[in-house]
């Protein structure tokens, strides 16, 4: 499972470096939409991360910072 994931990640990186046709600035209309951002609703993600941080042993992965609390 893990190996497969790493492999697929590597493949996607290699693919992106070599064979992807670059998307030009004038073709970025869709990617520029708020709903297409990696974090489309920052407050929702903040609340989710805070909730699961206090209920589970794992945290982070998506970004750094944000701060701790005594809930875990």
């Amino acid at each position, binding site marked *: *499972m*893990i190996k497969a*994931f*790493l492999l697929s*990640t590597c493949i*996607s*990186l290699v693919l*992106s*470096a070599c064979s*992807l*046709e*670059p*998307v*030009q*600035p*004038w*073709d*970025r*209309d*869709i*990617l*520029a*939409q708020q*709903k*297409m*951002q*990696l974090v*489309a*609703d*920052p*407050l*929702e993600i*903040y*609340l989710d991360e*805070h*909730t*699961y941080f206090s*209920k*589970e*042993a*794992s945290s*982070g*992965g*998506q*970004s*750094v*910072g*944000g*701060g*701790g*609390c*005594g*809930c*875990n």
Partner: protein
Amino acid sequence: MQLKKTQQGPRNIRRQLAVATCSLLAGASHAGGLIASGDNWKIDSALLLYAEKDRVSLAEGILSISKEIDDDEFINARIVTDVLTGSSPNGAVPSNTAQTFTNPSGNSTYTEAANTTPLNHTFKDLRNALSVEWDTPLSRSLRGTIGGNISREYDYLSTGISASLAQDINQRNTTLTLGFSLNKDTWDPVGGVPVGFTVMPASPAKKAIDGANTDKTVKEILFGVTQIINRQTLMQTNYSWGQSDGYLTDPYKILSVLENDGSGNLRGTNPYIYENRPDQRTYQSLYWKGVHQFPNENVLNLSYRYFWDDWGIQSHTVDLRYRFDFDGGHYLQPHLRYYQQGAADFYRQTLTDGEEASLAYASADYRLGEFVTQTIGLKYGFEFKNGAEINFRAEMITQKGKDRSADAVGVLQNQQLFPDNEAYLLQGGLSLDSDMVIKYIMRLFK
């Protein structure tokens, strides 16, 4: 030059054209009207209500304010307040008789009925947090972000800084991110910092403490690659490494100590001891996220995280959000999340008499156990023509531990040893520009 022939005939270019025209008309010194003015503050707010069945309830409010202070240079400030009430598992296992525990202060006791998960009922907390961030271009293809955060609870203080660099390469189709954060947290637990594996004495006797407060340091490094795949698809892959040093134990959590005769009964004297965890934890994660827009303008947002640490915990998280857009600015977004975690090496639901002398660490905190969290939710949003948005979401979260009753001894085989949990979440959000607020206020006074 070869003329590119479109196979499917003419395609829709209206939106791409609008983007191009926007930048043609924008840079102007008099960029009012058509283009949103950069003078405004963007205000995002949300209120979350979270309630667990028979356990903790939480109300959390966030206000986030952002402003573009110069070309492509942003500042953001976020304040968060949350109020927590209710009870939380204290680590002890249920018993076929009522159990009496001493409150952390040592001044009072609480009693839990037979055959129920013992909860610490004095769980009441108010948290205030502030974070600020400054995001600025450093060159044509390099951005830098620095931030600071502080969070205060009556028994906990967290302060931290973070910084990251994002380098665009490959005609801005690839972004490399390097991030770093450092947090310094201080515990000031009620009744002092308990000494690990010492007994929870019966009130009014006081627990053995190692000072009134203690602290920990958390540092994290993240390396990420964000790649534009095509006009509709974006992917991000991150590796992060983190290390916590210092007091990583939960000062309020205890373990039940059983007789070592296999009966499953609590030992006769001092059946509860304070938990004890290592003073260092190193963890790593691999994170992948993909965002894709379909021709019908619906958006799929899928992520996977593999997390592991040197406490023996491994976890897998899959998170899926799918946004359906409807006419008139309405959208619906179902959310599914699946989280599966393996237990820490020192996770123990119970100890037997005398065992604590041979162990370095043990904790019965359910969050270090083996369990699955499942989330199902639905969000509804409405985007106003002027760019404001209002949204609501409702989610249900269930947490279920691995059934270990076969391993349990004696009378405990009949008890629910892992405190399964069920929680409901309601959230409302509102985003708008400061000039909308000003216009509205002015209209009120007209």
